[in-house]
């Protein structure tokens, strides 16, 4: 399907002089702390490429955006992902109709994003910023003054990409094809999912709300199938979400809450052999951004975000997410010089489980108009207390990475 839409879109785009195209090719190197396991790869060398092209003529728009990552000597981890691959057209100036694969950004927060659940993710990347996979969609947007009402139909749920056995981002367990669970007994990711979303800006306040029925691929159970192979179980869920954002002088405050109501709460065999079933819960997040301006034009930004899972026990929370009751504090300094020099220092702090931290430092700088480099260091400070839980699973996953990006 992806290939078919790709061909339909790319062939006409080649001859269109008005198309806007950009992209990048990056050389990525990452070195992990030695986990004393020969099965995993502590050194990761890859080439990442992304193409982003758009053609717009009057009220018609074609968009193609995709990325690929090829790993040195690890073909099992190579990926090609279509993020956006769609056509849209405007009808009567206030209605837009569209079809194709799309990335959705339904959250205003930076790190904890409870409302941002439509797309499947590439889980073979950093835990706090999984890359998204385009979701096949048919949609209608109705535009209002400073607002929008949207209706979505998702005929197929995309599979998330799980880390391979060799990857340092995972549990070193091979994961088989997922099992899709709903009350009607569907076993396929071709299904009838949908959503209604409303957004409205009133001066300095942005409001958003949605209801969504789909297979939950953010919170799933890693269990065993009939052959006792490890599989993810994705359960059909009704989600309702509201969010607010307010801008005042240097401050940007954000609030978001999403409630999940699972349609089928069947028990499945978990990875540790116990019977488990999904349970309804809510995820709430708060965010604060504070901007600073210094003499000579440089700027700083303080970002504080907090997320908590509500409506389930402490143990159930710990199974649902690594970030079940966590604070993220980050300071980024932008020199605003010709080379775009930026330094960012951040920490995840688990407020519920003792001694669980993830510290991240990032430095980026342009080399020229087309080249840029990025140095990133990640330190997990979460020693295992009893059985590995939360960030403890990644305790020996410290890494240092370097990427060199060429933009076109």
């Amino acid at each position, binding site marked *: 399907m992806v290939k078919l839409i790709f061909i339909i879109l790319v062939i006409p785009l080649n001859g269109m002089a008005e198309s*806007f195209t*950009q992209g*990048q090719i990056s050389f990525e190197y990452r070195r992990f702390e030695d986990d004393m396991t020969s099965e995993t790869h502590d050194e990761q060398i890859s080439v990442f490429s992304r193409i*982003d092209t758009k053609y717009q003529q009057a009220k018609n728009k074609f968009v193609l*955006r995709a990325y690929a990552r090829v790993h040195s000597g690890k073909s099992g981890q190579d990926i090609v992902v279509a*993020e*956006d691959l769609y056509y849209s057209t405007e009808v009567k*100036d206030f209605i837009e109709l569209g079809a194709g694969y799309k*990335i959705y*950004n339904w959250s*205003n927060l930076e790190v904890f994003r409870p409302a941002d659940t439509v797309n499947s993710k590439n889980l073979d990347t950093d835990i706090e910023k999984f890359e998204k996979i385009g979701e096949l969609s048919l949609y209608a*947007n109705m*535009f209002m003054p*400073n607002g*929008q009402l949207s209706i979505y139909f998702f005929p197929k749920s995309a599979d998330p990409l799980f880390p391979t056995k060799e990857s340092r981002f995972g549990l070193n367990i091979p994961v088989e094809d997922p099992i899709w669970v709903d009350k009607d007994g569907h076993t396929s990711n071709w299904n009838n999912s949908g959503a209604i979303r409303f957004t409205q*800006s009133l*001066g*300095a306040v*942005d409001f958003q709300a949605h209801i969504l029925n789909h297979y939950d691929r953010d919170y799933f159970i890693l269990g065993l199938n009939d052959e006792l192979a490890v599989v993810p179980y994705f359960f059909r869920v009704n989600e309702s979400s509201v969010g607010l*954002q307010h*801008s*005042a*002088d*240097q*401050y*940007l405050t954000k609030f978001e809450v999403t409630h999940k109501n699972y349609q089928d709460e069947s028990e499945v065999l978990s990875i540790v052999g116990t019977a488990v079933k999904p349970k309804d819960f809510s995820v709430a997040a708060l965010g604060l*951004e504070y*901007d600073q*301006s210094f*003499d*000579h*034009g*440089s*700027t700083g930004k303080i970002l504080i975000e907090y997320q908590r899972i509500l409506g389930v026990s402490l143990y159930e929370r710990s199974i649902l997410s690594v970030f079940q009751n966590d604070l993220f504090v980050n300071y980024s300094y*932008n020199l*605003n*010089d*010709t*080379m*775009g020099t930026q330094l960012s220092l951040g920490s995840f702090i688990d407020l519920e489980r003792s001694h669980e931290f993830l510290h991240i430092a990032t430095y980026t700088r*342009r080399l*020229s*108009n*087309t080249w*840029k480099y990025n140095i990133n260091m990640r330190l997990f400070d979460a020693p295992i207390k009893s059985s590995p839980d939360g960030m403890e699973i990644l305790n020996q996953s410290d890494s240092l990475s370097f990427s060199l*990006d060429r*933009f*076109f």
Partner: protein
Amino acid sequence: MCNKKILIIMMSLFSLVSYSKNSQEKGLEIATKVQDANNQFLGEINTTKMILIDAYGAQTVRKMKGKILEVENDGDKSLSTFLEPLDVKGTKMLTWSHKQKNDDQWLYLPSLRRVKRISSSGQSSSFMGSEFSFEDLGSQEVEKFTYNYLKDETLGDSLTWVLERTPIRKSGYSKQIVWTSKKMLTPLKIEYFDRREKLLKTAVFSDFKEYSIKKKKMFRANKIHMKNIQTKKESIFLWETRSLGSVSSSREFMKRSLK
């Protein structure tokens, strides 16, 4: 004798207050006249280039394209798309400037496919690493400043009014001194003073072109040369193409148009 002294002092004070009031009134009058002369341009479509020159003379180029929509009884709406450097290509900034309250601003980040609201407090920060700040390039509504007429002066061949304007809201500047052409009713030079009231930058406007919008004539500078006195860096803002009077649809200045 004592009463006479008091009378003289009071008269001096009165004349000072009166002068100050007159200079403020005259300053506001000139600023309003300049704004009226430059209003009703309807809109603008442009492509621009910025040349950044460091203290050693090395040059870097930035490229953008932009649209402006004039809004009656409020600040203008503008949409800028960054074209170079290539790592920010496709980044768009939408600004709804306001006369009486803080501007609303959104940024579209193509790498994240995301529209993000940004606080308008960063007005004093550098625009794309240049010597221009966001507030230098934003719309300059009369309501954003208080004015003080200083003197008449000849600058080059042009007769000018020299005004001091002080930002009402939070700004990177304590004050600005503006030389405004009496003939073209547009600034020829601006001196920017930092928060410690020291001269920070000087902008010189040139390459003026006359535009006629619905029989109303107005002038626009197609080159601004900004020199930072403290760091010795310079930036030159050039309009490569400029179509004044081009009316874009108001839909193009909505958040949804950023994607």
